[in-house]
């Protein structure tokens, strides 16, 4: 799908006037934030587990080559096949070749952000293979030909009546007079429609929340059980994962699992956590006959050893989105690509380039809530600042901003001049504000004062006040 990140300001204006979106976004704080806080409060060790989770991933990333080698050996020993892909093109070609080799006509898919990243559905369709999303939220947005607007709640931007309209439009074989006025009825209808798809599919594709080096296991975490039907019923199970999903041992996975669901949905544990190792064993009556793991790099190795390495700790829980005042106001689509919110503002420039995604790390108030709630303690605001610096260094920042920053830098390096100019400005603003004490308009800051007044300064600078009060 098209990358609209360069049009971020226009996307934001559209989001503000989209009433359906604004109505749907009101569910975010009440749903996710309260539930996470309650789950955190029920587990006194929560913050200590976050520290350990961070350390586990740091250790793994520092030894990633060795853990990956061990992981691959274990997958192969259990009868699975690992495919190494550097680019999205390679990953798409590998998956299509696997599907064609199996004579696949339809594939079911568990939820995978990596599949979104490489536009897998479009590629499969172009190759004559029908992809069917099975996560309810992903299914809904596939019907609408949209991207997910949230990494764990893909359809969070929609309201029930919109879903009803889509179901009536697409499920046209069902009686038009049927009642779909409650979410339970919509869920039941999706269950029945998708059940047929699971049974017909030739290949099941899932992502992975973890790859365990110790055992060669891939782990998926779901609530619906869609990932399990996807990977159990067809002839082959293809796992699509990127390198940073690795953890050393089952014990390490358990530690991070304890913070994952709690941070994501506020659940103690998701309904289904599934560990998959190789294809079905001799004598097994069910399970896939083939097990493939497609390991994708797509720019991650370039983040290792840089200030952005910490981002590779991310476990895609979505807590930073839920707690972000910018995300809460504009939703996920405005970010213009696959990953929205603070984690997207850091990851997207690394994957598609700061030239295209420069607006995203700038769309932050630096309130710090994202870092505060991140289960992996990723310093998201610091990394957004790194991106702003890179943008500046590469002369991608707009001319007016560069001039402004240059001027400010000139003045800030000359304390006497700085004090003089700020003293003049403080007095001038005070005079302009008059008796009201507030400024309704400010030259060069019309955008800011368009929606609120600026409280006027006291008339003297802090430095001057400090000097006057010194004994």
């Amino acid at each position, binding site marked *: 799908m098209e990358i609209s990140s360069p049009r971020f300001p226009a996307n934001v204006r559209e989001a503000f006037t989209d009433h359906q979106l604004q109505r749907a976004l009101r569910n975010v704080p009440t749903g996710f934030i309260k539930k996470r806080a309650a789950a955190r409060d029920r587990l006194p060790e929560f913050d200590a587990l976050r520290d350990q989770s961070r350390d586990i991933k740091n*250790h793994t990333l520092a030894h990633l080559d060795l*853990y990956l080698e061990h992981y691959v050996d274990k997958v192969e020993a259990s009868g699975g096949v690992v495919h190494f892909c*550097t680019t999205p093109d390679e990953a798409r070609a590998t998956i299509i070749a696997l599907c064609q080799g199996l004579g696949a006509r339809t594939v079911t898919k568990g939820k995978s952000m990596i599949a979104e990243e490489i536009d897998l559905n479009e590629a499969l369709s172009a190759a004559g293979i029908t992809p069917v999303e099975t996560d309810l939220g992903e299914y809904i947005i596939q019907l609408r030909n949209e991207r997910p607007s949230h990494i764990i709640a893909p359809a969070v931007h929609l309201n029930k009546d919109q879903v009803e309209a889509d179901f009536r439009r697409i499920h046209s074989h069902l009686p038009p007079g049927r009642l779909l006025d409650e*979410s339970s009825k*919509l869920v039941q209808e999706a269950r029945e429609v998708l059940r047929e798809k699971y049974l017909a599919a030739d290949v099941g594709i899932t992502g992975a929340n973890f790859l365990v080096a110790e*055992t060669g296991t891939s782990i998926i975490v779901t609530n619906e059980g869609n990932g399990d039907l996807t990977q159990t019923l067809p002839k082959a199970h293809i796992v699509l994962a990127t390198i940073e999903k690795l953890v050393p041992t089952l014990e390490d996975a358990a530690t991070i699992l304890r913070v994952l669901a709690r941070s994501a949905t506020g659940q103690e*544990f998701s309904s289904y956590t599934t560990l998959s190792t190789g294809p079905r064993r001799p004598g097994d009556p069910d399970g896939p006959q083939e097990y493939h793991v497609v390991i994708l790099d797509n720019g991650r190795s370039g983040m*290792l050893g840089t200030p952005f390495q910490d981002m590779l700790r991310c476990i895609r829980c979505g807590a930073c989105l839920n707690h972000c005042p910018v995300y809460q106001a504009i939703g996920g689509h405005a970010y213009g690509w696959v990953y929205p919110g603070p984690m997207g503002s850091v990851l997207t420039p690394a994957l598609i380039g700061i030239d295209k995604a420069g607006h995203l790390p700038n769309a932050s108030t630096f309130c710090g809530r994202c870092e505060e709630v991140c289960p992996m303690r990723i310093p998201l605001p610091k990394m957004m600042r790194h991106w702003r610096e890179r943008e500046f260094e590469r002369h991608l920042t707009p001319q007016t901003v560069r001039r402004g920053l240059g001027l400010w830098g000139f003045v800030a390096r000359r304390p006497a001049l700085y004090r003089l100019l700020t003293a003049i400005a403080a007095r001038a603003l005070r005079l302009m504000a008059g008796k009201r004490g507030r400024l309704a308009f400010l030259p060069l800051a019309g955008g800011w004062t368009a929606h609120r007044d600026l409280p006027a300064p006291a008339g003297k600078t802090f430095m001057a006040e400090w000097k006057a009060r010194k004994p």
Partner: protein
Amino acid sequence: MTTSTPKDEFIARLRRSLKVTGDDATRKAAVTARLAAHAPNLLPKRAQGDAAHRLKLFAEQAIAVQASIDRVKTAAAIPAAIADYLRRHNLPQTLRHGTDPLLKKLPWKKGAPSLAVSQGRADPSDEVSLSHALAGVAETGTLIVCSGPDNPTTLNFLPENHIVVLEAGNLVGTYEEAWTRLRARFGAGQMPRTVNMITGPSRTADIEQTIELGAHGPRRLHIVIVDKGQ
């Protein structure tokens, strides 16, 4: 001249970024030791305690996620308890399970004469299935079910009603204790095709964050805890 594979190139790229080599003895030793030790990290205090504490916590956690629980004294009482559960919920008196030794030798005819019991993987038309858990994890009310002819994975997901037998002696505190049991059963570093950790029935909140049960998997999860198993 040696040809390099995609794997070699892939891993070489990681090493260039990390500024390391593959033959650094210190790094290798760190990885080997961690994998061999598979040491537990911090374990939640809530999961520590005696068998009575584990049972109480398991039940609280499982019920909090809409599972239901029955407790029977002996395995011989399981068939009648299941028939009764199906009657209470107005469900058909049919049941499918795998070749699990405990489930196979239960006195089905005597305990539940009206129940039609069959064996094998789940058929899409099956309404009720039965599995035998390897373990139950008290900290979150989680069941551990392993794939194989004993307990085929499809039984866990296709039918709308899933019943799981858990022996009280297999109730552990933490996930890590369940891993210990997995290693004891399958060997260190060895796994069955699938290990399912099941915590309550299937659910979704994808429409306006309203929680609905039975999204794709079972709508009901019923756990029969048996004091004395095999």
